[in-house]
């Protein structure tokens, strides 16, 4: 995989999943499979205090290194022709895009596995933190979930 087939971006701006999906395969005719994941700020209808906004904080400098290390590990494990990881930072509203991970490969098994692996590792090893603001204006840091750690340990 050419070095330029890896895209890692940490940005406050929105991104376009359609454009990113197209970029993952258009340059390489051997790509037969593109698996993608899109994470969004979601409403929690059952929970106390509806979330209105979410603020994503990160550790500039370390974030990019951590994502690059995670992508390198995925490329070591699976034959990938292209990988894209985009993560937004700053204030976001319900329905906004947070994260995009896309993996292109000749075959679907590698594309699927690498995409899920990247999300599991990103969730537990990349220095991002979410702070929620409820309708009443209260803010709270999102707690890490043990289930995310368990998922990351599967690989």
């Amino acid at each position, binding site marked *: 995989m050419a070095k330029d087939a890896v895209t890692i971006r940490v940005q406050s701006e929105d991104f376009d999943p359609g454009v990113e999906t197209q970029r993952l395969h258009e340059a390489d005719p051997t790509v037969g499979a593109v698996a993608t994941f899109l994470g969004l700020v979601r409403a929690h209808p059952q929970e106390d205090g509806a979330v209105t906004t979410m603020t994503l904080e990160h550790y500039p400098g370390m974030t990019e290194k951590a994502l690059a290390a995670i992508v390198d590990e995925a490329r070591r494990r699976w034959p990938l022709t292209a990988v894209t990881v985009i993560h937004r930072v700053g204030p976001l509203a319900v329905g906004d895009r947070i994260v995009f991970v896309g993996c292109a490969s000749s075959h679907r098994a590698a594309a699927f596995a690498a995409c899920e692996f990247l999300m599991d590792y990103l969730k*537990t090893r990349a220095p991002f933190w979410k702070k929620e603001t409820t309708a009443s204006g209260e803010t709270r840091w999102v707690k890490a979930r043990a289930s995310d750690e368990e998922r990351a340990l599967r690989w």
Partner: protein
Amino acid sequence: MALSIKYFARVRDALGTSGETLAWNATWQTVDDLRQALCARGGAWAETLSREEIHCARNQQIAAWNDPIADGDEIAFFPPVTGG
């Protein structure tokens, strides 16, 4: 030289600072030695920097508590990550 210390997210909010520059102390051998020195300040420092509830990075890489520390390092303390 000195250490550059950074605090993020809930840790930063609890300590009321996003970071500081700390004079190097040659008795520190591991990142946990630094953590204990910060805890010795008491109050929010002792409450927040419990090693069960935070993670540490040394020079922008996740560190174990017994990893070595050296003059000039950038050390960060933060809660478990919640991105994605």
